């Protein structure tokens, strides 16, 4: 009897019919059914990307799901998960308690909490309703904002909820070519944007993550088109933050990527291993990639500057780099935060200045 069969029938939901396959360790097998599990161990933590050599945004993570129904060729989960069963933690109060406990111990902190560390925040929402429950809980928590990051368009169930402006619904955005060829089974760019527009109309703040940026033939045109498409639908004043990060992965992942996604273009370019042990494109090429997108964003938003030090007006969302060093910030934005702590502080300032309701909520809750 397999592990999933041991779980009570009502606790396991099939996503699609699957024939009996014998490669039990295959990541794809675990994606075919959802297992609802109790919270085990610590679910609240700091984003694992944080490292001493890099300027990080210091976002907190709440591990509410493990594995993901989508199949992105570059996804680190293919090498990371020892248990590949798609799992959803059902114990919402226990999850939320970890957040409130942290806030009690850190009375001056304002935290962003993402649920995307080990999976997609919304892909399973129609089946689980987990994100909806979290949205309602975070509406009551002072000094914390929830980030749901997704590549899906599963937003129907969260649209009518009373989120009180305490939830940012974020999308991993990539050019249509990459969405189609590297992010299998995910929503297309157009569908993601339609969903984002609906969330915007429902009063949610929007987050955009241009990750992983990839080099391919005509990438410049691909990313220009992506940015044009985004700002045809989304108003900059509703965007809480935009991140940029280039393709990176653990060197060990090469083999699994080659065997699971032989047609992927993710391995086509030369890469080097950085101090954090992850492989990235050569730094001069990453500079070119980020600078191109930065300039395109400035032109589209009709602003002279963007970046962590220029994110205080409604038309200037917080734009930052993910897992890059200070010199890359300086090259792209002209200035760099001194430390992860400074970037985090700039983040909070930007949110409070651009979304005064967050600051008011915080004061009200404190009183």
């Amino acid at each position, binding site marked *: 009897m397999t592990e999933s069969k041991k779980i009570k029938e009502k606790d396991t939901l099939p996503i699609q019919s699957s*024939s*009996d396959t*014998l*490669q*039990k360790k295959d990541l794809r097998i675990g994606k075919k059914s959802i297992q609802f599990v109790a919270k085990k161990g610590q679910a609240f933590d700091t984003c694992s990307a944080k490292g001493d050599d890099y300027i990080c945004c210091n976002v907190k993570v709440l591990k509410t799901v493990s594995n993901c129904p989508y199949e992105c060729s570059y996804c680190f989960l293919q090498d990371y998960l020892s248990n590949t069963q798609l799992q959803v933690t059902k114990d919402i109060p226990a999850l939320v308690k970890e957040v409130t406990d942290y806030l009690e111990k850190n009375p001056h902190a304002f935290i962003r909490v993402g649920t995307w560390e080990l999976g997609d925040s919304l892909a399973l929402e129609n089946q689980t309703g987990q994100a909806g429950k979290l949205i309602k809980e975070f509406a009551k928590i002072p000094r914390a904002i929830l980030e749901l990051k997704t590549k899906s368009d599963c937003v129907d169930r969260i649209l009518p909820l009373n989120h009180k402006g305490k939830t940012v619904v974020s999308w991993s955005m990539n050019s249509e070519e990459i969405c189609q060829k590297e992010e299998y089974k995910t929503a297309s760019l157009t569908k993601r944007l339609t969903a984002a527009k609906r969330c915007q109309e429902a009063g949610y703040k929007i987050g955009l993550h241009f990750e992983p940026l990839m*080099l391919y*033939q005509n990438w410049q045109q691909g990313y220009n088109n992506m940015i044009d498409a985004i700002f045809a639908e989304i108003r900059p004043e509703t965007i809480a933050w935009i991140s940029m990060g280039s393709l990176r992965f653990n060197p060990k992942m090469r083999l699994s990527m*080659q*065997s699971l996604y*032989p*047609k992927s*273009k993710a*391995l*086509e*370019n*030369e*890469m*080097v*291993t*950085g*101090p954090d042990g992850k492989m*990235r494109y*050569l*730094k*001069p*090429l990453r500079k070119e990639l980020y600078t191109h997108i930065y300039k395109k964003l400035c032109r589209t938003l009709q602003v002279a500057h963007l970046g962590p030090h220029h994110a205080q007006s409604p038309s200037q969302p917080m734009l930052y780099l993910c897992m890059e*060093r*200070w*010199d890359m910030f300086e090259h792209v934005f002209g200035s760099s935060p001194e430390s992860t702590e400074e970037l985090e502080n700039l983040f909070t300032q930007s949110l409070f200045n651009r979304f005064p309701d967050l600051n008011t909520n915080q004061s009200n809750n404190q009183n």
Partner: protein
Amino acid sequence: MKTVLSMPTHQISVLLKYCLSQEKDPLLTHALTQHGILSPLHIAIYKETPLLIDGFKRLYWAQQQNMTKVPACTHPCQTPKELFQLIHALKSKQIQNPIIQALLLQTLGREHSPLLTQETHPLSSNTQNLETSSQKKSYFHNLKKLSQLSPNILHFCREKKFSFTHCKKIITFKKSTLEQLIALNPQLQWTASNFILAASYIEQSKQHTVSITDELKDILTNNPQLASQNKRLQNAFLEKLKMNAKPTLHYYHKEIKRQIHALNLPKNIDLIWDKSLETHALTLQIHTHKKNMLSDTLNSVNTTQLTKIDRLLDML
């Protein structure tokens, strides 16, 4: 121990997927159409997975006829060694093919595969000329390396894809290594020639900054026929290289070296940079062995040179 049974076709995994022959064999097709499948397929049950070892054409025919079950002999295999022995017993001819070996390596696991670590495998007879164990070890190591790369080359040829990473790996193969491999195992000639071809295309692509080693150039000079063996292949490589032409790490290192050389710094000064280019820093190393040499050296560096060193930092 083996069992003959009717096995559902959809459960059968094809071990050597590139071997699932779709070629038309009129005699076999005629026989199958007249009499059906008379001799059972051979299937290894390895780690609970049924892997097809023998009967690729029969399975393909059965799939075409929408047959749900086929007669099969099952052979339980607990270890990669047992699996390999079975493959060897049933497919002794095909296993000589280095591409098949490479696929086997991928299936069995590169680290623990008995294919290239045990002297019982079919290529071991070729190692009789190798006198010492270190020579044999080196032969197996290189064979393994080549075998791991060759499916990628094949794949990229078929898909008209090619990556710089693969190019880099190719050019690290020395002439002597290739010659030794080919001498010991003539069947590797074809695979090795692919590597040589790839290297030649890198050289032909003017936009590309990687240069092949002199040793490989010698091979090309001595084997001009290799370079013109397959026009389609050449075009695929060239197209991919042109499309993908981006400066390489090698190019940046060359450029940094060139700029440092142009600085005309005193000979006892070295400028050192992080070879991965990730760290935004240049280290100035001054070698001194006499009193006052340090201050003399520092004084000899002028402001223009210092400004240029500063500019050099922009590359990092």
